[in-house]
């Protein structure tokens, strides 16, 4: 995509490599990302252990957007950092386009950190106030071995891609931009590395709604034009529904449900997913919410409950839920809940629609 627009002149191999995404080696059916058994714990000073990510597995197909939702503290950002290898997992594997990351004969962390790029929430904190936008965007390519001229071309090209006229914006500083424009720069900076995967961690959450809509449109355009794959993390369930093909629901370091976006929103199977959806404002002043689906705040990932971690807030928890941890079932729409597993011994497990009558939750 990028290289066609750039004038050809003599370039180093590193530059040639930077101007296009790394090649697709696995073919269209190979998931771009396979995550298996990912664990990251943090030891605190007092000896307690934060089980931030505690055995997470999923796949992301090429060209799709996987939405990730869950309350704050459930491990979304930690997982994003593991996907980028900005932190090293305690256990588990990442396979990028068929190549295991960090293993011999697999993919180097360095290559991963080019092929995957991350865009954060806080557009202010993530831009160096003393660098022009061109310098900011050119920084990554320069560090990856591009000469000044090619890095500059990349900066201008990507500024154009995100809708900031290069002639106007290349020389500007972050403080001269609005919040929406700064977030465009962050996206441009990620694109300058010709990534295949973008990890968007609350990337639109700090923006005003009218600006958020601009950025969401931009992200949709870029995904198509550049054949990108997205992991889109957000606490806004309506935005996740809008952008995602599939959705992963996290609770205290675990995946509790994952599936196609329609299934998750129209036929959620985990009581937590149902509660999350029913916590959204109604958007209709004549049909206001009459009760809160959950009480209290999310519990701490230090010493999480035994068995199912959600059981302490769950309306249909049973004795089995405290004893045995429910496993994420196989299949395209997978849920980790005893009530959805006929073999679990949960009293509601035999029922066709186990939650509709009992969860006390209407979405």
């Amino acid at each position, binding site marked *: 995509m990028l290289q066609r627009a750039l004038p050809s002149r003599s370039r180093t191999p590193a530059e040639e490599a930077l101007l296009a995404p790394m090649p697709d080696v696995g073919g269209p059916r190979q998931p771009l990302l396979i995550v298996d058994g990912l664990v990251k714990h943090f030891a605190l000073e007092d000896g307690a252990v934060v089980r931030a990510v505690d055995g997470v597995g999923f796949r992301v197909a090429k060209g799709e957007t996987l939405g990730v939702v869950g309350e704050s503290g459930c491990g979304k950002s930690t997982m994003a950092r593991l996907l980028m290898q900005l932190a090293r997992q305690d256990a588990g594997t990442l396979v990028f386009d068929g190549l295991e990351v960090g293993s011999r004969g697999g993919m180097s962390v360095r290559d991963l950190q080019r092929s995957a790029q991350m865009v954060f929430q806080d557009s202010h904190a993530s831009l160096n106030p003393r660098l022009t936008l061109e310098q900011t965007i050119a920084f990554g390519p320069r560090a990856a071995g591009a000469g000044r001229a090619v890095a500059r071309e990349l900066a201008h090209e990507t500024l154009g891609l995100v809708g900031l006229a290069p002639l106007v914006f290349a020389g500007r500083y972050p403080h001269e931009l609005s919040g929406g424009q700064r977030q465009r720069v962050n996206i441009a900076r990620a694109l300058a590395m010709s990534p295949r995967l973008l990890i968007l961690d609350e990337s639109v959450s700090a923006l005003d709604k009218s600006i958020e*809509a601009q950025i969401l449109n931009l992200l949709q355009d870029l995904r198509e034009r550049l054949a990108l794959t997205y992991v889109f993390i957000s606490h806004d369930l309506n935005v996740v529904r809008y952008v995602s093909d599939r959705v992963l629901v996290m609770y205290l370091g675990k995946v509790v449900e994952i599936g196609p976006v329609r299934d998750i929103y129209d036929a959620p199977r985990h009581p937590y997913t149902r509660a999350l959806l029913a916590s959204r404002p109604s958007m209709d002043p004549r049909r206001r919410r009459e009760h809160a689906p959950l009480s209290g705040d999310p519990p701490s990932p230090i010493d999480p409950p035994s068995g199912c971690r959600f059981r302490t807030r769950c309306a249909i928890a049973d004795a089995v839920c405290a004893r045995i941890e429910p496993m994420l079932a196989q299949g395209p729409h997978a849920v980790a809940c005893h009530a959805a597993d006929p073999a679990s011994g949960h009293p509601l497990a035999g029922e066709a629609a186990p939650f509709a009558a009992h969860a006390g939750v209407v979405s």
Partner: protein
Amino acid sequence: MSKPLVQVSDLRVVVRGADGPVTILHGVDFSLEAGKVLCVLGESGSGKSMTMRALMRLVPRSATISGRVLIDGVDVLALRERELARIRGSLVAMIFQEPATALDPTFTIGHQIAETVRAHEGASWADARRRALDLLELVQVPSAARRLQAYPHELSGGLRQRAMIALALSCRPKVLIADEPTTALDATVQIQVLLLLRELQRELGMATLFVTHDVGVACEIADEVAVMYAGRIVERGSTEEVLGRAGHPYARGLLRSVVTSDLVGTRLVPIDGSPPELSALPPGCSFAPRCNHAIERCSAAVPELAALSASHRVRCARLGELEPAIPHAQEVST
């Protein structure tokens, strides 16, 4: 109709900027009766917080306020500092997005509430403590007696928010100002706090001014809505009128850019551009440069807040020329 408890007219705030004075509020007018919730809706920087702070004269020292603020018959802008201190907390109480701004980290929750009750009502310590317990129970803090002994940092975000609400209610205010009190909370906790505020509002009959940038939150709690843009109210009316039949192109654009399930598979229609610098407002209607309907007339003068109905007002020079509002929020179900 009962007499409004809060009457604000032509409220202006000017601050000293680097290159001379900057007008933050350009004459804000609204009124609110007891027992009602007015949501002030708008994007960041539109002047929502400044409006609330100006009501209580909690503005930067460099700022000058003019206009008229009548709260329960008290002319707030004419009060002396000492009288002002007395009505803050007793007649009018405030809650914020960040409980840290209201709660003192060095005292227990119980002590802070009791202290406030004592200071304002001259109650004995024993009575004040009892009232603190009642208040924590009122805001539905579980194990309230134990939580009286907790320091703010020992509470979860949702409980801290409840403790701040208890503190705000401690002197039975007639007016509650809530500035984005649920913005930092998870949706699962936000809905709990909104339901609580709705219930307290019903029970205590306060007038509540509720600032939010979130249309969904306004749908849940507002009786009336005022939409702000660049330091002016550009539309106000009942919740149904403003969120259901918005008249101002900005309000319509804002509602249209809220992503809801109906929009899946469609391209979003954002408002182009970004809000103006307050130090360099365009002439006439501040929204004109971003407005698809703008014509020359829009830049000639700032339009008046014109009446669409007895309660619905819109500040648009082309009001009546635009096609009727397409209902937004009310058509959207989850």
